[in-house]
């Protein structure tokens, strides 16, 4: 019938969003349109996911329309094993938002639709300039959603996230332009296509600067220590659905960007600085984990927890081996589902009780058992309990980290325990302990809410028990990606071998 699924997935939401802005729809109509469009995108996303073979590791569902031929800019889309799971997350998680939350203004739904289209576009783009266009387009709806519909301190939070991310992306723009020039210098033709840029041999100070430009942009989006300071404010002040979008999908696109663009193009710089970046990932994990322990506001706590988990996801890339990379790609979805559900459930609590103070809660498990059960599953996945999706990803990452640098692996593994501490403690304070009289009217989830969240909870368990179908789609592409970085001759020099680093540690102890 038609073949350009990706374009449809990108532009149907964007056009629907713009239509809601411009045409005089009522709030309810906007919500129904949003829901309908997001369901269509889910169906298309499932279609793409299921018919994606992934065996060759090459791009599938390719679309290509030249835009500026003399500069080699084109509208090209494609999916491979690196992007398929991120794409699936961006495509499938949205209907929940429309079903669970109602807002006062239709513009909110319009922004949600636009951000979804832009995110799918960013994941599917295989041309750097096109990627940049969608990457920036993701930001604007978030800017409006936080600024218009956020909490009482929304303005500083909005300005912070906007200036931060725009600064990052403009630096990335400079780097993208540099790559185009480098391609022109090396092959005589302009090109911004991923497949061409991978072949560049980049060295020298300017290439390193370009690498830094990319890394800062992605580090801000992920966010990686020390570029994480916008996150607690933005996540806390944003309305629940926006926090959900930011944590479940947008942060993942930062990680995806590093894997897709930085690793293959700047292979040498990446190999050289991987250790520093890995350290920054681990520091972020620890720092945000400890910060999460101290929070009184559960949304803020979850924000720090999300940042802490992004640390380990990022760490998986910097370990530069197949296990860690596969783990990262897997964990992208695992974290999207678990953190996403946690944010949504806490959002429901916030809507009903109008408070986010953990001390105001207690004994909810008795009043709302299904709610507590869902929360428990998502929480256990978030802390990486075996049998849930979180375990597979984190296990693979730690495994890869051991091969990369045992010290980092030990630190990362230990830090996971902090995650268990604050999560279980949160669960205890909200769901157990003595019931709080203020929560007398708190009923369990409604049928619609249960039906909305149930598929994700099932997915969390399925991904934990039977990861093979997912891993099979990822692995060929991950291997191709690794083959690129293995080609860097000096990679061994930058990678501390296990025995060697063990000895160094001992000598240090003496």
């Amino acid at each position, binding site marked *: 019938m038609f073949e350009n699924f990706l374009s449809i997935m990108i532009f149907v939401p964007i056009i629907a969003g713009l239509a809601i802005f411009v045409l005089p729809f009522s709030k309810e109509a906007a919500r129904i349109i949003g829901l309908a469009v997001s369901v269509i995108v889910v169906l298309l996303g499932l279609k793409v996911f299921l018919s994606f073979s992934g065996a060759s590791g090459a791009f599938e569902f390719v679309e290509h329309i030249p835009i500026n031929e003399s*500069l080699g800019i084109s509208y090209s889309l494609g999916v491979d094993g690196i992007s398929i799971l991120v794409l699936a997350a961006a495509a499938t998680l949205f209907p929940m938002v429309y079903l669970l939350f109602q807002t006062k203004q239709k513009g909110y739904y319009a922004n949600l639709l636009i951000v979804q289209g832009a995110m799918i576009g960013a994941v599917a783009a295989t041309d750097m300039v096109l990627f940049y266009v969608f990457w920036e*387009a993701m930001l*604007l709806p978030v800017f409006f959603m936080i600024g*218009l519909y956020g909490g009482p301190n929304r303005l500083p939070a909005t*300005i912070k996230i906007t200036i931060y991310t725009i*600064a990052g992306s*403009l630096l990335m723009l*400079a780097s993208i332009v540099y790559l185009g020039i480098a391609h022109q210098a090396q092959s005589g033709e302009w090109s911004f296509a991923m497949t061409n840029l991978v072949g560049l041999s980049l060295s020298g100070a*300017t290439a390193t*600067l370009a690498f830094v430009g990319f890394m800062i942009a992605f580090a801000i989006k992920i966010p990686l220590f020390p570029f994480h300071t916008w996150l607690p404010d933005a996540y806390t002040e944003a309305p629940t659905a926006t926090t959900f979008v930011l944590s479940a999908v947008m942060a993942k696109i930062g990680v995806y960007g590093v894997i897709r663009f930085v690793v293959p193009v700047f292979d040498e710089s990446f190999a050289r600085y991987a250790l520093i970046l890995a350290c920054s990932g681990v520091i972020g994990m620890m720092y945000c984990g400890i910060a999460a322990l101290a929070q009184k506001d559960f949304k803020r706590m979850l924000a720090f927890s999300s940042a802490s988990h992004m640390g380990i996801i990022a760490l998986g890339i910097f370990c530069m081996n197949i296990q860690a990379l596969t783990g990262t790609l897997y964990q992208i979805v695992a974290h999207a589902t678990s953190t996403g559900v946690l944010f949504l459930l806490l959002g429901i609590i916030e809507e009903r009780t109008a408070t986010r103070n953990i001390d105001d809660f207690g004994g909810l498990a008795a009043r709302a058992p299904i709610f507590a059960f869902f929360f428990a599953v998502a929480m256990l996945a978030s802390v990486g309990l075996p049998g849930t999706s979180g375990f597979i990803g984190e296990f693979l990452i730690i495994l890869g980290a051991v091969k990369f640098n045992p010290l980092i692996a030990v630190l990362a593994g230990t830090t996971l325990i902090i995650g268990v501490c604050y999560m279980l403690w949160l669960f205890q304070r909200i769901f157990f302990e003595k019931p709080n009289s203020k929560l007398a009217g708190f009923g369990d989830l409604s049928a619609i809410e249960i039906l909305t969240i149930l598929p994700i909870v099932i997915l969390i368990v399925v991904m934990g028990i039977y990861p093979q179908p997912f891993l099979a789609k990822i692995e060929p592409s991950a291997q191709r990606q690794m083959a690129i970085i293995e080609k860097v001759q000096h990679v061994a020099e930058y990678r501390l071998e296990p025995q060697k680093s063990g000895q160094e540690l001992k000598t240090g102890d003496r």
Partner: protein
Amino acid sequence: MQDIMAILPLVATITGAILVMLAAAFESFRKEGISILGIGLFAFAFFVQLTVENGPPIAPYETMFNGMLVTSTFTKVAGLIILGCGFFSALASQTYFNQNEGFVLEHYCMMLFAASGMLLLTMAAELITLFIALEIMSLAIYTLIAADRRSVLRSEAVLKYLMLGAFAGAFFVMGSVFIYAGAQSTKFADIGRVIGESGFLTNPALVGGSLLIVVALLFKAAAFPFHAWVVDVYDGAPVPVTGFMATAVKTAVFAVFANFLVINGQLQEGWVSYLFYISVLTMFVGNLIAIGQNSLKRMLAASGIVHSGYLIIALVAINSEQFTGSTILFYLAAYAVSTLGIFAALSYLGGEGEKRHSFDDFNGLAKVRPYSAACIAIFLLSMAGIPPTAGFMGKFYIIAGAFKGGYITLGALGIVSSILSMWYYLRLIIAMYFREPEEDFEVGELTLAPLGTFVLALAVFAISFIPVAI
């Protein structure tokens, strides 16, 4: 005959100007009639410019009129931008003077005269012609600013501009004299030949002369250190005139600047290192000025300085061997569309006597007038360089050009400058969208300016799809 055909748009504009002047003498042509006539003439000139045949795209010294004028695709597109600016400024004027004092019947006549000066400026290939064109443009602009003689603000603005502009004109004449002494000709082609034969730096008259000319052009382009007049003058002028000055004048000046610098590679090389610093300082000083402003018009004036800085980046990276100027023109078009859009919007949203002028006056605009606010937001995002707007592609081409020419630092500083500029562009968006409205934004009888604003908002996206080679 072919010569005449090539300058047909110029002829059309000047004839139009005279026509409007004569029409103003008739009782039957009052404000409305004159406005429609002026707008129509700009549209007509635009189409003449669009249809006129030009020489090959890269032929800067294809001479006409005994070497006084050149036409090429570069001058043609520059002319299109100028006449487009004139058209939309005329639309904005029509609405602006519905709710503001100070309309004189000569308004559109002066706009057409200014436009004709600008067209001549883009085509000038000889210093005397250039000077005449510069003065035609400047005198018309002075008149436009201070047509309302009773307003102190306008008179102050025009006095500042006139005094400094006269200095710049004097510099230009002095420079021409030096160059004539050094090259025995005022034609660009001959000057280029002399430089090619005897070298640029070995000839002090040429160095001094071109220094003075560059100073005059930098003054007109509002570049550091000759930028001090910009904020006050733009602030003092009526809104549509400010928009016209900020866009059309800049287009003309940068067109002639590029034409002058590509006379000979050595001339440009001799100035590149200085233009490098000037561009950096222009961008950062402009940003500093803009960040401090509370008035929208003043902020836009200062941001105009910053955009001049970006354009000078393009001048630094000019390749005089194969000059097409496409980057400069694209950026100018992108900048013109978004700036004119904002000024068109301001000319009806400003209300009676420009009563809304500061950031705070536009608080909550989005809740009362969502479409106008959305258009302004689009223009601001384009100026800030956010995709998929024209401003983004313009910046992209400029930075790509700088990198390609080996000016990595300059390109990177351009990026840093656009990060800084986010602050004041976002500030207006935040005011419009995130603050509560304090009034109901009543405006006078709405006619053409909102239409112009809407068309320009669409153009912001349309222009970004025009492919440009670097």
